[in-house]
């Protein structure tokens, strides 16, 4: 059950983190 929990949260977490990182990278331009 724990393995499945880690797997599922990773599957949804990684794309979300990737999207957030990309957005933050672009957002930095606002403060440069």
């Amino acid at each position, binding site marked *: 059950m724990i393995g499945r929990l880690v797997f599922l949260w990773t599957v949804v977490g990684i794309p*979300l983190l990737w999207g957030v990182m990309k957005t933050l990278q672009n957002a930095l331009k606002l403060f440069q």
Partner: protein
Amino acid sequence: MTASFLDREITVAPVGFNRFLVPPAALAVHLSIGQAYAFSTFNLPLTKLIGITHSAPGDWDLKQVGWIFSIAIVFLGSSAAVFGRWVERAGPRKSMFTAALCFGGGFLVSAFGIHLHQLWLIYLGYGVLGGCGLGIGYISPVSTLIKWFPDRPGMATGMAIMGFGGGALIAAPLSVMLMDHFKTATSNGVLETFVTMGVIYFMYMMIGVYSVRVPAHDWKPAGWVAPLKPKQLVTTANVAVDMAWRTPQFWLLWGVLCMNVSAGIGVIGQASPMIQEIFAGRVSPAVAASFVGLISLFNMVGRIFWASTSDYIGRRNTYMIFFLLGIVLYSSVPTLGHLGSIPLFVAAFCIILSMYGGGFATIPAYLRDMFGTYQVGAIHGRLLTAWSVAGVLGPVLVNYIRQYQIDNGVPKAQAYSITMYIMCGLLLIGFLCNFAMRPVNEKYHYRGSTS
């Protein structure tokens, strides 16, 4: 065999099932359908399908292409309203599967439309079919999550609906990457991107289909006891969907959602030109795009933050904050513009957009508080018609008033002042609707079995 796998009975969780396996299932669906917010990345490329690098004779124009998203949003609201009761009856797995077929299939039909250069096929594919996928997918996990988390319904639905905001953050860079990858001398890569995204999103949504479970009828979280004396404005009764929309509470909540969304959505659509015009010469289009990205991020974060907060301070108080703080922030925007303070301006809009997202994410728990868990997903579906109305009302107000002022000689930098005060007016109406909220009269309560 397939039919039985999708049936609600098969999805009842065994004893000892970890309820934290359900939010990622909901997120898999919402992260996918949240792509809709990033559809504008396809707008320009869709106007260059023949000319590839420029619009050639025979290419569609932006106005024609803009209808694709509008049709999808209209079908989001209407399909959520029409299919809400079916979603409750069929269960989350069958409805998520249907949403995956519609959303993924919508991309494939649209790709065929690009291949034949027939715009009506894209309207039908992404607009109608994809829009139904959006509506059914949006409400599919809501009542399931509320039943799994009776102790934290705001946090649970906030997590899922956060995915709808986060989906755009993933889809925008993903679309650009895929179009760059598939670009050739004879194609700008949109067709191939549509096919790829259709397949990827279908498969990703299937993760949700496979992993979603509903709790057994008598299930409760370990150690959790329903409060003996319910909080004010939290019912222990149930109201059926057909009865719910005859209550004044449904229409007050409809007003709350519609006003909160109208104010936010009007700004989202105009965010890029607005910051460039208010701070003329200091903000380039690239920086304005960063501003749009940043407020999208706050739109996403606000969904989980405010919905979780509402579990502690109550739904009514949460919306009171949205409306009162919103009025203060919107009315300060013209002053911040005159002062030329970009950081304060950006901060104000980040908070405003967090409350816009928070409004979406907190409404399912508010509905549960007022109408119980019995058919909360279906009631939520009908309430989403407020989104469809707000999707027209907000942008129309902002765009038309701005244009009217510019036509009457108001400088572009000041053309948003009146708009902001009108947004305050919308929030005031929302505040009054929320202020008038009272428990549902017992005559509307459902007396039958809810199992």
